[in-house]
């Protein structure tokens, strides 16, 4: 008897909608599990040291966020069903607040967010932002509307001119720290190769240094992340990480190319820096 008084046997029409809402929510969450995740620029499938640390930190923040989201959304739906106005409703008690409770839900999130997100974040900021190691392999990256130019100071010809490639893949040795110097020749670009490392802006007149390190030989896709004009979508880049031997062989081959720059050999994009045009 009392139970049926509390809950009328017929469902209010709103229930169908809330079921819909619940389905929507489940659908949203489930959608994270479907679809191909082995995609070229997946930010959560790291193949390098930097990207891995970034992924780990994202997960650290994402799971609590997801938990809070589910809690809030479910709580809202439950409340709307439970406190839905009924025909014989009295006017509810006029609660104005509860100071201890409110202080609690101000302080607790601060503590949680600082302890679980803020504190782990700080060392990673400093680790990823440190100067590259002295023995890191240097490459200078220059964004130019709408190609990437790479300068390899350690691949030089007899006259000391370094290898510069334009619109070619970036070749790096796998397993070794790389020191990137990133700059732009015209407008802002951003050098992002998600599986290797998060993006870094290329800004005219400002040389940025960052280090990356790729685990295994392989090929990784990236593209410009900052709106840079009509060619923005086409400003792609491939990073080719090679074993030490392969990289050595490639370097030597390229050094030869530098020497023959301007003689019209097959690697037209390869030229020596300082050779003018």
């Amino acid at each position, binding site marked *: 008897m009392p139970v049926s008084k509390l809950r009328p046997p017929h469902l209010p029409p709103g229930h169908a909608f809330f079921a819909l809402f619940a389905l929507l929510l489940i659908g949203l969450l489930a959608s994270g599990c479907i679809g191909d995740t082995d995609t070229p620029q997946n*930010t959560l499938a790291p193949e390098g040291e930097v990207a891995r640390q970034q992924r780990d930190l994202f997960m650290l923040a994402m799971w609590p966020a997801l938990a809070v989201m589910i809690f809030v959304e479910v709580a809202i739906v439950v409340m709307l069903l439970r406190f839905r106005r009924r025909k014989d409703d009295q006017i509810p008690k006029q609660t104005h607040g509860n100071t201890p409770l409110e202080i609690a839900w101000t302080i607790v999130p601060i503590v949680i967010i600082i302890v679980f997100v803020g504190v782990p974040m700080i060392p990673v900021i400093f680790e990823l932002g440190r100067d590259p190691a002295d023995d890191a392999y240097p490459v200078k990256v220059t964004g130019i509307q709408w190609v990437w130019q790479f300068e390899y100071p350690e691949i030089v010809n007899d006259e000391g001119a370094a290898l510069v490639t334009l619109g070619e893949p970036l070749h790096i040795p796998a397993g070794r720290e790389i020191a990137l110097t990133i700059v732009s020749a015209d407008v802002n670009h951003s050098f992002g190769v998600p599986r290797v490392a998060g*993006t870094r802006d290329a800004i005219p007149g400002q040389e940025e240094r960052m280090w990356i390190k790729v685990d295994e030989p392989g090929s990784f896709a990236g593209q410009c992340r900052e709106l840079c*004009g009509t060619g923005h979508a086409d400003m792609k880049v491939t990073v080719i990480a090679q074993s030490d031997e392969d990289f050595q062989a490639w370097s030597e081959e390229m050094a030869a190319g530098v020497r023959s720059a301007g003689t019209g050999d097959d690697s037209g994009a390869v030229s020596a820096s300082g050779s003018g045009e």
Partner: protein
Amino acid sequence: MATEWPQPRKQGLADALGWARRMADQHYGIWSWIATVDHKRIGIMYGVTAFLFFLAGGMEALIIRLQLAVPDGNIVNADQYNRILTMHGTTMVFLVIMPLSAAFFNLMIPLMIGARDVAFPRLNAFSYWVFLGGGIFMNASFFTGDVFSGELGAPDCGWFCYSTLSSKAFSPGHGVDFWALGLQILGIASLASGFNFVVTILNLRAPGMTLFRMPLFVWMTLVTSFLLIFAMPVIAVALFELLFDRLFDANFFNPDKGGNPLLWQHMFWLFGHPEVYILILPAMGIVSEILPTFSRKPLFGYPFVVFSGIAIGFMSWGVWVHHMYTTGLGTAANAAFGISTILIGVPTGVKVFNWMATMWGGSISLKAPMMFAVGFVAMFTIGGLSGVTHSVVPSDYQQQDTYYIVAHFHYVLFGGSIFALFAGIYYWLPKFTGRLLNDTVGQIQFWLMLIGFNLTFFPMHMSGMLGMPRRISTYSGDQGWDLWNLLSTIGAFTIAAAILIFIINVIYSLRRGQAAGHDPWDGRTLEWTIPSPPPHYNFERIPTVHARDPFWHEKYTEDAAGRPIPVIAGAANGHGEENGDHGGHGIHMPSPSYFPLIAALGFPIIATGLIYDYALVAVGAALLFVGIYGWALEPVTEEEAGHA
């Protein structure tokens, strides 16, 4: 000479002005709108104009979504895409959400604080006309290219317009000039209305309406107005520098001449982040009014909600670098701003908890305004939480400029602001039209919009995590983004259908809607004590306020057990609007004026002159001068004839 009064002079002009003024005083006809200084009419004009811009910005969004529906889209080319993208962002921020909020400031603030108008009614009209002029000017840029060959003239630098892409060298044509000058004009409107509402709220409150008895929406308007006052000058300086670079070959942002392109980013985001809260605080205010009304409970923890709003206002100045984590400002800066950014989530979270506690134990009526308000809480929470995930600096390096960010801020600005603004429309529009919007149609619109919204923007989290950069006009099919983009496009058109239903609802309800009466929702605040639509003087007698939620306390008292019961014997309508109405005789309202419009017209003309021909600058300046001169010298109220 000295004894002669100037009145007999210029009889013809005076006659004409007098006629125009009398026409304006009639409360009907086009002139009464053009010259109006009535906050309610200005509010309606703000709302209608912003909604039209919303449709324009929505069209731009649909073009973007069509282009990206499948890989290698070719609905538009990259150049057109960049321009449409820029105008979509600029329109939605500056021409839709800000003025829609301004519409609610105008409509509601005087009614909620028990005032007859804002502090500076003509300045208020000026704000509107300047906004309209700026909006039209900005959009006119589309037609400055060779339109018939598909060459649009709109700005192409993104709504953030980073240097050096915005420089003359990389963005030739006049698009960026239109953009910068248009924003400069809109900034004037925002500043004027910011000052107006600060003064109105501080000085025009009804007797007894202490700061801590003000409705939450009034509080949030106050905070927003202060943010406008302090944020707009920052972007104004940035825009002046950009304009000097472009128009007069200055080198503020030119790295080749010692300028610094990063300076633009600092100034833009120092404005831009308070701006984000300018967009969301009014929405929070609206929701803080609707949730209590439809739960029949006062807002839970009023002081916490007020103070968290103020805290957000202050903290919003200390987080701008989170837009610039990847620009290499150094580890210390990134760490400091990372911490401040995760902390700004806290006052927002406090508000969400308070809203939920407001509903807890209530008697919740799920009418359309409430559905949208709850939709706001539900969707805004998702946006806030995804915001926390990329406040984490190293993690943000991966999400920076991907669709993950696009998902985040659309959850905040669409799922947040736009849902709340629709809640406000369903809640308050009947006050001004006298007719309720159809609730069933409203429910259909809500669900369609909620589903469409999530279908559009939730997949963007996925495409973002899979590395899809923002602002690319095409993508290839081998990146795993196809499915998510197609879903987004389907969702966008679902939203469009929901908006169409809303338009039909408004048109239908204006003609056939159920009469609203003065208090359709069992409201708690002063606006529900007066008729719908309100007389132009709002309150027959200025009310005296004795408590927070003053109207509720007039309608309900507490029994011995502390439970609220209705006040007996019709004491609820003791304000005498229906009985003993004097028809407003003896109440002096500010007279209509054409001068705000004349002054406002000066700005777009000056701006056009700066781009095309400096002679026009003189014309615009003259118009501005004439407008302000006439404005300063016209009498505050017309002689009694005006009240015929």
